């Protein structure tokens, strides 16, 4: 297990170094986030629906699509000079490779979310500070499921001709449970509802994370080998 973790950290460190040296996907995700929030802010009719009612859906649409931009890059950079062959040839296990990609994607998506959340609070005038603890917990849990599935789908999509189009097509159907749970929990947190109204969705989200992490680790090997 120690070796798997060591290899995963090496792979994640390499990916993050490459990403934050070029900042291509990160800046794209941030600009995309700001644009989406601005469009929703100016397109909605504040007299018809209140910001707090709309906010959970908008928040998770923004997170999901901004996250996709990063996930697209996860395996695209391994196509360069067939670097993926170099990884497969090394003693690093396929599990370490998957976990390394998951770690790098978690950091990437987490950073995008950390910048997007204050922007969201400003645009929609939602008081997030008072509910920051539970909100961050929900975001973290949903992001784990999102990244677990997204990393696997990215490894499948990268070998197709239109990888950037294929990733959302492959991934979004699998994201309906965690996104639905996250939206429902976020809405209840913003509305100040009791924990008993959240617990059911929370169990669903935790079960999804555990199940899909395990399934993705098991399936990953078969998606990358010829």
């Amino acid at each position, binding site marked *: 297990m120690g070796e798997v973790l*060591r290899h995963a950290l090496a792979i994640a460190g390499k990916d993050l170094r490459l990403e934050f*040296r070029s900042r291509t996907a990160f800046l794209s995700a941030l600009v995309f986030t700001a644009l989406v929030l601005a469009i929703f802010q100016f397109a909605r009719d504040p007299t018809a629906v209140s910001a707090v009612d709309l906010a959970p859906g908008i928040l998770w649409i923004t997170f999901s699509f901004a996250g996709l931009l990063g996930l697209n890059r996860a395996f695209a950079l391994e196509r360069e000079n067939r670097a993926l062959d170099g990884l497969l040839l090394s003693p690093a296990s396929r599990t370490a490779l998957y976990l390394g990609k998951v770690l790098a994607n978690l950091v990437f998506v987490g950073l995008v979310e950390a910048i997007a959340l204050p922007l969201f609070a400003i645009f929609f005038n939602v008081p997030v500070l008072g509910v920051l603890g539970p909100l961050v917990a929900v975001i973290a849990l949903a992001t784990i499921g999102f990244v677990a599935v997204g990393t696997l789908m990215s490894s499948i999509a990268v070998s197709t001709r239109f990888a950037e189009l294929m990733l959302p097509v492959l991934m979004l159907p699998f994201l309906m449970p965690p996104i639905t749970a996250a939206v429902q929990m976020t809405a209840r947190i913003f509305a100040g509802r009791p924990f008993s109204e959240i617990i059911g969705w929370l169990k669903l989200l935790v079960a999804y994370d555990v199940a899909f992490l395990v399934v993705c680790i098991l399936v990953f090997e078969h998606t990358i080998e010829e």
Partner: protein
Amino acid sequence: MTAPARHPVLTVRDLARSFGPVRALRGVDFTLDAGEVLAIFGPNGAGKTTLLRILAGLLRPERGEVLLGGQSAVRAAASQRRRVGLISHATFLYDGLTASENLEFYGRLYGVSDPRARALAALEAVALAERAATFAGTMSRGMLQRLALARALLHEPDIVLLDEPFTGLDQAAAAALRRQLVRLREERRTVVLVTHNLDEGLELATHTAFQVAGRFVECAPKDGDAADYRRRYAEATAAHG
């Protein structure tokens, strides 16, 4: 190939692989001991790269087996993969990392002690020490090939697989690569070298094979000069191509 092969480092038995209707390999057999260098000559499309990818464990054969020191290389365990170094058409390097960072990264994957020091030593060995901080994406083809060699040898594999390593190199770079390969032979590493170039291959080989249409049509210890090999190669490709 070697008789008797008491402790073969690399054993290949009846290897076959197809891609759709194309039969890339049709039953390849050979055995190599430590210190033996097999040069495989063959025309384009003969299945040479497919053979190397199977030997490296990157591709699964449909039939047959590859044994590294007596253990199967198909779905090889980490300890088996650690024994192999591969230089392919692609460099497996990241353009956005420097030469040193690329080698340090692979050093960590292979669990070498002090990856940074080992990376610098490996760069020194291929005369790239002054380029340690140069991004791989800005290097010339010759420099990249030397860096790829450093990557492949970083963990000191006892089996080295080389796919057309001289392609695109100028004379100085080819000479530097040749010195490295001679050193491998002197260190008794087992080498499989795939090349179109008879002269380069014969200079380094202890054994030779002609691969045509997925088969070894000749596989034996090196005997004869370059002119003799040219004649035999022409006959082999005419008869089986």
